[in-house]
């Protein structure tokens, strides 16, 4: 709807108006023609009457010889007059007369009779034999005298109305000696014709009106009412698609019932389609929701970024799938107080199936290695398991490494994955057998290598999403460019690689290379750097005076928000003080991890079992507060989650906090 509301004239009113107009016009035209017809009809009838009267008069006259002498006799004149009067009455002729004409073209009356008795007597009294009429001759009389025909007629108008006159010559011996004239008043005939005309017109109007009214009633019943109800149904259908309107019952079928059944069919179809669309839409929403859930589960399993800062190493991993759920993954986890494991992998294909496969591979590697298997055992065991049941014939390339932070020894396994860049004085690709991907053959072997990293040396492990990123000319980023980029970063920043800085450089390098070509964000890589020399510096000894500043500096190095850092430092201080004062531990190691959601601090100590998570803390009075126990309470209050495990005579405590970003959100 919208715009100006148009004036409404119903179809019924419009057709009635149209009918009336047609009737009016046809009557107008009909009357015009009828008038002409009526006049002509009157003329011909009056012509015939007057002509007939003169013929009769002529017959009564007999021979014209001795005409004048005969009429001199009054008796004869009287008999002729009677005859004439009789003719007048019979033929309805008004006047019948017999005249002679002299040389001066003047009439000489002989006999004149009228139809009605009063006029007839009046004429007998006023007109005498051979009386001269002073009036001019009528043109018809003149034409008769000229001898051109044996009868002339003429119409003229008098006070009493239209008259028709007929004149015949009376000849004797080839000479016109007199003429007989008859006058007939046409008005009666005209009146009669008019009456007939009006009767016919009235009849026409009546018939027309009956036809009009009955056709309007018929049209109203068969067209207007069904059309209106159809339009009402259409309106109600657009407002509520589920409104069922029963079909109208009719005896006959016509265009309107055709339209109605078409509409009925259309609404049924539309209802069906709309239902289908609704189902499809809800299916689509469901699929999208499931994808969204998959993505959230995946991002929960693989943080978009994961930074680890511990005693002896620094690791940074990122994963950004180009699509909702990607097939690339990485994993960083600690085996014990000294060893840390990094995994980078790439699943063939994308989407939910790839994501599920990825979860299986990632979990499989983690559980096998945590369960104490070597890299090679882990690979072959998992490979067999996958090959045993792999209906989608998916496969995964993996790179798995374990760094011993005490010695700098790095065990590296490559299962068909891109070879990593060794970050040393120069950046160079590590040389080893690339091995075979997981899930291809059940007897596949992976490449293995053991290297010893010096302080500041590390590895960059990436997926082909990095090297195969293309620019707008479909040219690939390539391994050489990546090597060059890592080398440049090294020479720019001296011997100390910074994980986060290198990854930032790789990201901006890719962005510069790809420009607007495509979303390059399908980038997954991890940087591991061995910090052997820092191990001593970052080691927590049983001396609080030297260890507390180490904790403080490390956390300040990870958390930029000062107040937030202080709260985390408070928790760490309370936990660490507790370990030092009560556990009898000889060695404590700790490391920090940061993802986009969580900041976590882990403490590993070899002291007596002590679980700060479940230990029962009695509420103390104010006076008792200076005796201790308050620290664990403060620590619990200020952590999001505290997880304690006792593994291999080691207390493993993980303190989890919300990351800055998540906290802000």
């Amino acid at each position, binding site marked *: 709807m919208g715009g100006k509301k148009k004036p409404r004239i119903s179809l019924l009113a419009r057709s009635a108006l149209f009918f009336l107009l047609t009737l009016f016009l046809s009557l107008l035209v009909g009357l015009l023609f009828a008038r002409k017809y009526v006049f002509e009809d009157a003329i011909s009838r009056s012509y015939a009457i007057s002509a007939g009267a003169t013929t009769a008069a002529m017959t009564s006259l007999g021979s014209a010889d001795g005409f004048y002498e005969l009429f001199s006799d009054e008796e004869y004149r009287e008999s002729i007059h009677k005859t004439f009067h009789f003719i007048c009455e019979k033929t309805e002729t008004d006047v019948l007369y017999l005249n002679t004409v002299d040389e001066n073209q003047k009439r000489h009356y002989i006999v004149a009779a009228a139809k009605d008795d009063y006029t007839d007597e009046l004429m007998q009294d006023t007109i005498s034999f051979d009386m001269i009429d002073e009036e001019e001759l009528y043109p018809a009389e003149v034409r008769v005298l000229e001898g051109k025909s044996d009868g002339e007629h003429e119409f003229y108008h008098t006070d009493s109305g239209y008259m028709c006159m007929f004149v015949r010559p009376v000849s004797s011996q080839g000479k016109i000696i007199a003429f007989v004239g008859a006058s007939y008043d046409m008005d009666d005939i005209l009146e009669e014709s008019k009456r007939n005309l009006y009767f016919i017109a009235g009849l026409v109007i009546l018939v027309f009106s009956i036809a009009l009214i009955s056709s309007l009633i018929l049209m109203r019943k068969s067209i207007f009412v069904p059309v209106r109800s159809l339009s009402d149904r259409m309106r109600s259908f657009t407002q509520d698609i589920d409104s069922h309107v029963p079909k109208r019952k009719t005896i006959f079928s016509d265009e309107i019932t055709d339209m109605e059944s078409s509409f009925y069919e259309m609404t049924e179809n539309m209802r069906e389609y709309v239902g289908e669309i609704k189902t499809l839409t809800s299916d689509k929403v469901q699929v999208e929701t499931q994808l969204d859930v998959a993505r959230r589960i995946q991002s929960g399993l693989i943080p978009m970024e994961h930074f680890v800062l511990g005693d002896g190493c620094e690791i940074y991993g990122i994963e950004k799938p180009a699509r909702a759920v990607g097939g690339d993954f990485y994993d960083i986890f600690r085996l014990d107080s000294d060893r840390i494991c990094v995994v980078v992998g790439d699943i063939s294909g994308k989407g939910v199936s790839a994501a599920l496969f990825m979860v299986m591979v990632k979990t499989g590697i983690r559980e096998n290695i945590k369960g104490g298997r070597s890299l090679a055992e882990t690979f072959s065991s998992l490979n067999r398991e996958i090959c045993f049941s792999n209906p989608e014939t998916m496969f995964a390339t993996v790179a798995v490494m374990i760094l011993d932070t005490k010695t700098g020894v790095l065990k590296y396994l490559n299962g068909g994955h891109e070879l990593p860049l060794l970050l040393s004085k120069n950046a160079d690709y590590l040389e080893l057998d690339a091995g075979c991907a997981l899930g291809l053959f059940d007897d596949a072997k992976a490449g293995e290598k053991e290297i010893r990293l010096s302080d500041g040396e590390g590895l960059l492990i990436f997926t082909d999403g990095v090297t195969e990123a293309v620019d707008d000319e479909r040219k690939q980023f390539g391994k050489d460019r990546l090597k060059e980029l890592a080398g440049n970063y090294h020479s720019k920043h001296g011997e100390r690689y910074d994980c986060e800085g290198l990854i930032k450089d790789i990201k901006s390098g890719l962005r510069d290379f790809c420009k607007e070509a495509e979303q390059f964000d399908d980038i997954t890589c991890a940087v591991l750097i061995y910090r052997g020399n820092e191990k001593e510096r970052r080691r927590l000894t049983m001396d609080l005076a030297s260890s507390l500043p180490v904790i403080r500096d490390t956390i300040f190095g990870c958390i930029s928000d000062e107040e937030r850092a202080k709260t985390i430092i*408070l928790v760490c*201080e309370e936990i660490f003080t507790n370990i030092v004062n009560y556990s009898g531990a000889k060695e404590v190691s700790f490391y920090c991890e940061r993802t986009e959601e969580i900041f976590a601090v882990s403490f590993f100590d070899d002291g007596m079992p002590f679980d700060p998570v479940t230990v029962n803390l009695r509420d103390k009075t104010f006076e008792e507060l200076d005796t201790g126990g308050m*620290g664990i309470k403060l620590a619990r209050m200020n952590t999001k989650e505290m997880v304690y495990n006792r593994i291999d005579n080691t207390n493993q405590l993980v303190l989890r906090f919300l990351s800055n970003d998540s906290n802000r959100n």
Partner: protein
Amino acid sequence: MTIEKTIDGTEATLAIEGWLDTNAAPELLKALDELESDTESLVLDLSKLEYISSSGVRGIVSAYKKMNGALKVRGAAPGIMSIFKATGIDKKLSFE
């Protein structure tokens, strides 16, 4: 951490600056021991205190006990106050 002591008659003020953690707490206890014997009331000026842990809180409880309640706390930052509240000592302390 540094502790600055000022004396006004029988009222002593200890202005504590920096980090009052496990390592620094003994210094506070030492400063309390060194208070003049005629000190009747103590003010702890915490306006420059950046950090306090449970050891520091215990030190303040010790000060309260030593002064038999004649202790006032001045200028504690919101972060410090929240730890006072978390440990419940804010109910006993009087703040200026």
